[in-house]
């Protein structure tokens, strides 16, 4: 189980490839992998967004993400899980978050992956400040799904 906060742009597929290469043999019993990638869009609430700053609470953010992943591991019997989340300055088209889970069967993989991204959005300490044409604004509510 790995949680990474990432200061600069990352490629979700290169990270997944590398992560799987390094998996221990006893973990490589997985039959199902479910992955979610969240990408920054150039449009939010009807406005064009040129970039955003993602603030976090160093220490608590990692701890909270670790708890979410540990609870999911126990509940769905995950073989492995990887969460990568950007912090800092992000531009449209860049990946914000990657959640990947490896399980024996697909039902658990879908449920656990969905659970992790929902828990992350609602409880992990991240705050978005967008830069739009008219200036900057904090985004203080989550989209539901």
């Amino acid at each position, binding site marked *: 189980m790995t949680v990474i906060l990432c200061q600069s742009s990352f490629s979700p597929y290169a990270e997944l490839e590398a992560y799987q290469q390094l998996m221990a043999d006893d973990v490589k019993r997985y039959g199902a992998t479910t992955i979610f*990638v*969240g*990408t*920054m*869009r150039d449009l*939010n609430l009807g406005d064009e967004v040129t970039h955003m700053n993602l*603030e976090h*609470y160093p*220490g*608590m953010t990692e*701890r*909270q993400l670790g708890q979410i992943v540990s609870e999911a591991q126990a509940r769905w019997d995950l073989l492995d899980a990887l969460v990568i*989340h950007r912090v800092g300055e992000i531009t449209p088209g860049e990946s*914000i*978050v990657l959640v990947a889970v490896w399980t024996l069967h697909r039902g658990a993989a879908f449920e656990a992956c969905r659970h992790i*991204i929902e828990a*992350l*959005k*609602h*409880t*992990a*300490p*991240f*705050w*978005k*400040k967008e830069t739009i044409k008219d200036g900057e604004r*904090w*985004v*203080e*509510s*989550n*989209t539901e799904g």
Partner: protein
Amino acid sequence: MTIKVRYFASLREKMGRIDDTLVYENIATVADVWRAVSSGRPIPDHLLCAVNMEYADAQAEVKDGDEVAFFPPVTGGAR
């Protein structure tokens, strides 16, 4: 007693500072900490609190050396 108080995001901007270090003797709960840093006001409804990097409510106990944080609703993940 010494309490470190931290602020994040829009609250940090409203407070005009990133943290405070309290040395009061009469602090027992998170609500007491907020009163000490905000001229006696109650904690606004939408604000979230953490003690030592774990979510906590206004009645949670605060001890010497604790780190207390206040912040607005989180907006993690992708849209």
